C-alpha cells in the first residue's frame, strides 16, 4: 500500500519516532533517492578518491537553551561528532550555522559559543566553517544551531545492520534517559533532583577505542538520541531482520532519572540521550569492548544489556525484572506526561 503524505506536519513528525521515519520515507527518500541516503544511518558514506568519508548534519532546537550538564552549543557539537563516530569515522571538521532571533542577548550567545569551543576541543574536531542569520523577533525561538560534520572512515571499518548475527551482544554505553529528563526538568521547572544532568558528550575517543578493542568484532554502533534505546533497537531489528532481546535489570538507568520517569509516566528506554551509544558486537568480543568502554569517563557504566536472536517474526523484547517479558515498539509520537 502506498501511503500518502499527511496534510500537515505535526510535532510528532519531528519526535524521532515512527512518524518521523514515515515522513522521511514518504518525502525525502522519494525525492532525494540515492544509495547513500537510502541506508538511513546516522551519517552517510561518500567516496573521496580511494578513501571513504562519513558526512552528517543535524539541527538543534532545544528549549531551554541551557540545562544542567550541557547547553545547546555542547549538544550541537557532540551530536554531530557522535553521528560520525558511530560510523567508525574519525571526525575531521564540523560546521556551525546559527539562526538567531533578533534581540538575543549577545553575552548569552557568547557563553553558548564558548561551550561549543570547549566541546570541539574535547572532541579534537575543529569548527572550520559557519553561517550566521538573524531573523525578526518572533520568527525563531531564541537560537537554533545547525552543525554538519565530516569524518574519515578507516580502511577495514565497515559497520552495518546487515552484519549483525544471531548471538551477537548488545552493549549499552551507560545510563539512559538523563538528557531528556534534564531538559524536561529545566523546561517545566519540575523540581526534580539537580543530580539529573544531561549526558551531552563527544563519544569519538571512546568509540574509536571500541573499534581498536575488537577489530572486526563490532557489527554496528548507533548513538541513542531522540526515541531512545527502544526506537534505535526497533530500527536495527527491522533493518537486520533479527530479534533483539534486552534485560530490564541490566539496562542502566540512574536512580534519580528512573524516579522522575516513573512519576511522569515515561519509559527511560524511550527518553533522549546525547552521550550514549549502543554497540552490536560478536559475543566473544563483548568483554574486551566493555573493558575498553569502562576506561573512558563516558563509558564507566557500560553493560551487555542483551543479545540478538533469530526468530520467525523479528521483534524487540524486554525481559522484565520479575521474569516476564514484553515487546518494545518504536516511539509513536511525542512523549506525553500523564494525568495521574
Amino acid at each position, binding site marked *: 500500500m502506498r501511503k500518502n503524505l499527511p496534510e500537515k506536519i505535526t510535532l510528532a513528525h519531528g519526535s524521532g519516532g515512527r512518524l518521523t521515519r514515515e515522513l522521511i520515507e514518504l518525502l525525502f527518500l522519494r525525492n532525494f533517492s540515492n544509495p547513500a541516503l537510502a541506508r538511513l544511518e546516522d551519517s552517510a558514506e561518500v567516496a573521496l578518491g580511494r578513501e571513504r568519508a562519513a558526512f552528517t548534519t543535524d539541527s538543534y532546537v532545544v528549549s531551554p537553551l541551557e540545562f544542567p550538564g550541557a547547553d545547546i552549543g555542547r549538544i550541537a557539537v557532540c551530536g554531530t561528532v557522535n553521528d560520525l563516530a558511530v560510523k567508525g569515522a574519525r571526525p575531521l571538521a564540523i560546521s556551525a550555522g546559527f539562526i538567531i532571533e533578533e534581540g538575543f542577548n549577545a553575552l548569552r550567545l557568547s557563553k553558548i559559543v564558548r561551550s561549543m569551543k570547549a566541546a570541539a576541543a574535547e572532541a579534537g574536531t575543529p569548527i572550520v566553517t559557519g553561517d550566521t542569520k538573524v531573523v525578526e523577533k518572533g520568527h525563531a525561538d531564541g537560537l537554533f544551531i545547525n552543525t554538519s560534520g565530516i569524518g574519515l572512515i578507516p580502511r577495514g571499518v565497515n559497520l552495518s545492520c546487515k552484519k549483525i548475527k544471531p548471538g551477537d551482544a548488545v552493549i549499552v554505553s551507560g545510563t539512559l534517559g538523563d538528557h531528556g529528563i534534564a531538559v524536561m526538568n529545566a523546561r517545566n521547572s519540575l523540581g526534580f533532583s539537580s543530580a539529573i544532568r544531561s549526558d551531552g558528550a563527544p563519544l569519538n575517543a571512546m568509540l574509536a577505542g571500541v573499534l581498536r578493542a575488537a577489530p572486526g568484532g563490532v557489527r554496528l554502533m548507533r548513538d541513542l538520541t531522540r526515541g531512545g534505546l527502544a526506537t534505535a533497537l526497533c530500527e536495527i531489528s527491522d533493518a537486520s531482520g533479527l530479534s533483539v532481546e534486552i534485560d530490564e535489570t541490566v539496562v542502566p538507568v540512574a536512580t534519580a532519572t528512573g524516579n522522575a520517569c516513573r512519576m511522569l509516566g515515561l519509559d527511560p528506554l524511550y527518553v533522549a540521550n546525547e552521550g550514549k551509544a549502543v554497540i552490536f558486537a560478536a559475543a566473544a568480543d563483548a568483554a574486551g569492548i566493555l573493558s575498553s568502554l569502562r576506561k573512558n569517563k563516558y563509558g564507566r557504566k557500560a553493560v551487555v544489556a542483551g543479545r540478538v536472536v533469530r526468530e520467525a517474526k523479528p521483534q524487540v523484547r524486554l525481559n522484565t525484572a520479575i*521474569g516476564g517479558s514484553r515487546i518494545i515498539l518504536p516511539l509513536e509520537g511525542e512523549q506525553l506526561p500523564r494525568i495521574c
Partner: protein
Amino acid sequence: MTAPAKLENAEKYRFNSPLWRDKSLASHAFAEMRALTAQVSERTGKTVNIMEVCGTHTMAIASSGMRKLFPPGLKMLSGPGCPVCVTSQGDIDRILSLAALPEVTLATFGDMLKVKGSGGFDLNHLREKGADILVVYSPLDALAFARSNPLRQVVFAGVGFETTAPLIAASVLRARKEKIKNFSVIALFKLVPPALKLLLSDPQNNISGFLLPGHVSAIIGVEPYRFVARGHKVPCVITGFEPLDILAGINMLLRQLARGRAEVEDEYYRAVKKSGNPTAIKLMAKVFSPADASWRAIGRVKKSGLVLSPEFSGFDAVRRFKIAYREAPEPRGCLCGAILMGRSIPPDCKLFAKACNPSSAVGPCMVSSEGACAAWFKYGG
C-alpha cells in the same frame, strides 16, 4: 539472600528498592498465586476474575510482562480507572469547543491531546489550526500562565479522579486569593467509589475481587470502599504500583476468596492511611460538590463526579463560556465502553491494532497512557 530476608530489606527501602521488582520474590509470589488460584477454583468452580480498577495498574501489569505468568484460572480485567477513557464523548466535545474559542488558552495534561471528539478531530488537530493549547504538568503551571498572560482566558481541562481534583481545587483557591480573573476550570472529575457501585450493579458482572487504586486511596482512605466488601461481598485490596505490590495484592485477594472472606485490605499501607489525606479531602470538599457525571458508553451516573460548588461557580468554564452539553454517540465498533466495564479485553475489539492504533486511535483507551488498549498494544498481551 533468602526471600524472607529480602522482604525485611524491602521494608527498609519502602519507597524505592530494586526488591520491588525482584525476580526470586516474584517467583515465590507466583508459586503462591498458582496454589491459591487452584484452591479458589476448587471452592467456586469458576475462573477467578480480578479487576484492576486503576489504569496505572493496567500499565504496570503490561509493562512488567506479568500477564503471561499468571496461572490459567486467573484473569485480570481492566476497569474504569483511566480518567481520559471514562470521559464521555459529549464532554470531550465540550473541551474541544472551549479550545476552539479564539480568546481561550486551553491548559491540559498531555493525555488529552489525542482524544477525538465526535467530529473525528482532537486537540492536536485544533492546535494545528491555530488553537492555543498549553500542555502542563500541574494546574499551577496553568495558573502561572494565566497570571503572566492577563489577556488570555486560561481554561483548565479538569479530567481526573480523586487524585487530580485536590490539585485543581488548590489552584482554584489560589486564583481566588490572587484575584486572577482569566482562569477557569471545566470540572469533569469522576469518583472511584460510585464507579465500583456501577460495576457491581451490572447483573452481568463477573468480578471476583477488586485491586483498588493506590493513589486514589491515598487521598480518600479505606472507608469509602466498605460497601463493596460488606454490601456486595466482593473482596478488595488497595494496592501499590510496583510489580511486587501487584503480585502481593492479587495474592491477598486470592486468600480472601479461598477462605470465603470479603474485606477491604491495604497492601499499599506505606502510602495509604486509613483516613486518607485529610488536607486533600478538605480542599476537594471546599471547592467541589458531588454531582451526576457522564461516563463514556455508560451514561449519567448519580453523584459520580465533582463539579465546582456554587461559591466557586465564577471559575466554571462551562458557565463562563456557555458551553452546552450534547450527548454524542460512541465511535462505531469501538469497544471502549465494554472494556472499561471489564466485560471485554482489548483483543476482543475488531478495531484493535487495525483501524485503531496509537497514531490513529478510534477510542480513548488506545490514546491515554493509562488506557487498557494502549497497554495491550504497546507491551503485548
